[in-house]
């Protein structure tokens, strides 16, 4: 990922840290049961709450903010900037992660002290996400809840795909999904092949970006070439401007069909960046944006 | 004695000193005179061993300067420069103590400290020895530098060797009081087995304090005079491109020079 001048990175981190201060002060007194789980993946945490397996959680990472109840838990920091001591001080019986943790030494240090580590990789497909949910259900002895959530999820997806067929017969609007990268302090466009791109396609849209994989840094030329009919921005990036009209005033955007028609919408990062039980609802939401 | 044999100094294509052979007399105040750009500073730096001549050699007594170790050389010869800038606040004592650095390894001895004390007293800066150097006036700072330099080649008369003191325009930007004080103290060293070589820009001051005069012109030694009287008016007018005019102090009989710019290169003026 491109990197900012160090000084601005420092300030950003300080701001992030201060903004999250409230979450750091709180110490949960709940987890008196035998299991104490520290989980530093927002996707895994969302799934845990979905299947009602959250009672063992004692601490989470900074980016786990859904569902809102999770914010009452203390956090051990940004998942790529963890400290072993902080995690160990929560006296965990399990450290749960999706594999995306840093620095590398942290895992070794946890193992050295004898903390069990469980890595559950969510993968990038709908199927792998469903498997993750099932695994979590089994691990936390919430198989029934997991099964019922999964069933509802699958039903939802079937309904989504039925609609997809309908929309595919029409002209599919070009959609640009814009995410704001806080570390690099710039907007990014989501490319093809990602979960978000998949959701757009299910909603009967077409990704305005041609590239495959990951995200691309936004430039006015890029936006002009993409010429999207609809722009969907994740919450941090959208909220920097406040509303669709102000957002449309960004250089390059005002000249696009989306900018001119004011079809700029807001969505939360956690709805589109990975597959989950909320995906059917998310796709419906996107479809409403694309086919008013 | 400082002896130069066939000394030349060249930087790239430019020759700054041309084949200079001469001797700076021991126990005498040797003065190098000459206009700007004549090579005085370069000559001094070669004589101190800071610069290596591109031809010829410099000897102190019998030994070639370049054969001395850095520490040995520092124990026998010291240089007082025009202006020493100090970025950090050291005390007067600390600065003067630096003169003894070539004489001790890690910790200064009792004797080292005594010498510094005496040197500071000699220049009249003893009572200010705890003061911060940057807070001193220009003249006071130069006195402290002189104390440092004196401490470096301090000769107690305990059978120590001959020492060498070089002064590179040490009185520039000092008022007349400091000028005289400094040169008086310097001359005092002549009684302690020392060779002094100084660059002085003020001809009258030079003639007042100097014993032997080395007149430089365009990188060459134009004339060596063993008395102020030997420096002729012709020589001064030619080398310095001025009209020179010698008058005599009615009280002491000493010669004093007055100068004016030449008009159309013609020599003029009245007097001797």
């Amino acid at each position, binding site marked *: 990922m491109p*990197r900012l001048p160090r000084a601005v990175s420092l300030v950003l981190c300080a701001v992030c840290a201060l903004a999250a201060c409230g979450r750091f002060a709180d110490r949960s007194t709940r987890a008196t049961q035998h299991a104490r789980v520290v989980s530093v993946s927002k996707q895994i945490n969302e799934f845990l709450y979905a299947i009602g397996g959250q009672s063992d959680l004692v601490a989470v990472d900074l980016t786990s903010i859904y569902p809102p109840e999770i914010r009452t838990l203390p956090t051990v920091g940004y998942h*790529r900037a963890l*400290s072993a*001591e902080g995690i160990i*001080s929560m006296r965990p019986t399990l450290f749960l992660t999706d594999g995306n943790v840093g620095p590398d030494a942290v895992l070794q240090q946890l193992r050295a002290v004898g903390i069990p580590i469980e890595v559950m990789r969510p993968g990038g497909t709908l199927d792998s996400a469903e498997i993750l949910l099932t695994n979590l259900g089994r691990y936390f002895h919430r198989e029934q809840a997991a099964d019922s959530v999964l069933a509802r999820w699958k039903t939802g997806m079937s309904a989504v795909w039925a609609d997809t067929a309908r929309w595919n017969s029409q002209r599919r609007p070009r959609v640009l999904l814009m995410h704001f990268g806080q570390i690099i302090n710039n907007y990014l466009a989501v490319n093809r092949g990602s979960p978000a791109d998949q959701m757009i396609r299910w909603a009967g849209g077409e990704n305005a970006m041609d590239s495959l994989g990951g995200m691309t840094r936004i430039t006015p030329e890029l936006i002009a070439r993409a010429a999207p009919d609809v722009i969907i921005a994740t919450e941090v990036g959208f909220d920097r401007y406040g509303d669709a009209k102000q957002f449309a005033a960004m250089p390059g955007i005002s000249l696009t069909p989306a900018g001119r028609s004011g079809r700029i919408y807001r969505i939360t990062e956690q709805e589109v960046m990975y597959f989950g039980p909320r995906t059917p609802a998310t796709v419906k939401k996107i479809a409403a944006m694309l086919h008013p | 004695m400082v002896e130069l044999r066939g000394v030349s100094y060249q930087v790239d294509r430019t020759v700054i000193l041309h084949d200079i052979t001469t001797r700076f007399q021991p126990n005498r105040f040797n003065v190098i005179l000459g206009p700007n750009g004549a090579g005085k500073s370069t000559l001094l730096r070669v004589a101190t061993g*800071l610069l290596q001549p591109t031809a010829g050699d410099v000897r102190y007594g019998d030994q070639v300067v370049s054969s001395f170790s850095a520490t040995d050389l520092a124990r026998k010869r010291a*240089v007082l420069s025009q202006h020493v800038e100090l*970025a950090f606040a050291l005390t007067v004592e600390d600065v003067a103590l630096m003169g003894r650095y070539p004489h001790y390894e890690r910790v200064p001895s009792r004797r080292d400290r005594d010498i510094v004390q005496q040197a500071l007293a000699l220049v009249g800066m003893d009572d200010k020895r705890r003061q911060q150097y940057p807070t001193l006036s220009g003249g006071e700072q130069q006195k402290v530098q002189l104390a440092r330099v004196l401490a470096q080649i301090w000769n107690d008369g305990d059978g120590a060797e001959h020492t060498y003191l070089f002064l590179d325009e040490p009185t520039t930007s000092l008022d007349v009081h400091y000028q005289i004080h400094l040169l008086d103290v310097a001359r005092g060293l002549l009684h302690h087995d020392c060779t002094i070589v100084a660059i002085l820009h003020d001809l009258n001051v030079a003639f007042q304090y100097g014993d032997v005069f080395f007149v430089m012109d365009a990188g060459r030694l134009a004339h060596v005079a063993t008395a102020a009287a030997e420096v002729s008016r012709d020589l001064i007018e030619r080398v310095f491109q001025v009209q020179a005019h010698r008058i005599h102090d009615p009280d002491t009989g000493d010669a004093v020079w007055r100068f004016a710019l030449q008009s159309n290169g013609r020599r003029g003026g009245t007097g001797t």
Partner: protein
Amino acid sequence: MLKHLSFRQTYWLLGVLLVVAIVASAAIGAFSFTPAQMVRYLGQAAGWLPAVPGDTLGRNVLLGLRLPRVFVAGLTGAVLGVSGTLMQGLFRNPIVEPGLVGTSAGAALGAALVFVFGSGTALAFTHPLGSFAVPVAAFIVGFAATMLVHRLSTSFGKVNVFTLLLAGIAVNAVCGAGTGFLSYIARDPQARNITFWNLGTFTTADWRGVELIGVFFGLSFIWALRYGKALNALMLGENEAAYLGVNPRRLILWLLVVNTIMVAVATAMVGVIAFVGLVIPHVLRMMKSADYNFLLPASALLGAVLMEVIDIVARVIIPPAELPIGIITAVVGAPVFLGILLRQTRRGGSGFYG
């Protein structure tokens, strides 16, 4: 206030402060230890006391995580303090420290090169051969960067402070761009580590790190102590120092080499930490003396103390998470830097310091 104490008394005072800081740093954090616990754990580890099963976690955390971290922090502080002192002697200017003249940034770039092209940080930290690649690369690039700044800012033997700062900014920017580019092209795990480590951290400290930094600091420090006199003489200018028997060219070169080795090893272990080298000598000069015979040992002690305190702050401000060290040093150091700069321009005028 320190002016009334002798040098030796000052060293004792700083030494006592350091011991207190070390004990405090060992005790305080997300994981807290009482003095009794610490003594017990140490006793168990040394075999003097029988091991109690309930103590295992606490003991492992104290000995495996906390203590190495405490020592790495102290040693890094000493490295940075002494480095700032050496560099200020070298450039004859108080606004100099490894973070400002490119040494740290260069070391960071060197390390990043190994991270990205040397198959990942896991290799660098655990593999025996890889563990040398990072400090060596950090040294080479850090040295080149510092030499470049030195060359650019010196003319006719004098150091122009403004050119120095500008050259430092330029070289820092180039190294930063290089590191940024490397994180851009790096695959995910490596890039993560570069970004995080650019802010300085002690969380990855282990006993191996203590040994490495300890050895290189020890050697460099012992060497540097011999040159207190020479550094003082250098304050008068290169010519004057030469007249006093010092070889300025050789001294400057060796100073640079030794200093860069120290900083490179520390930076390779803990990342980039700025401003400490600036603050420590400045405070010591203000409170006591500018004599390098004093500054060298004192800056090692005070640097260690400061770093312990900063590390404690980093750990207690947002528990159980931690603030990166670089943020705190910037918050403390930047105002000091501005203060020195203002004082210089008010007093100095031309900005030349020969």
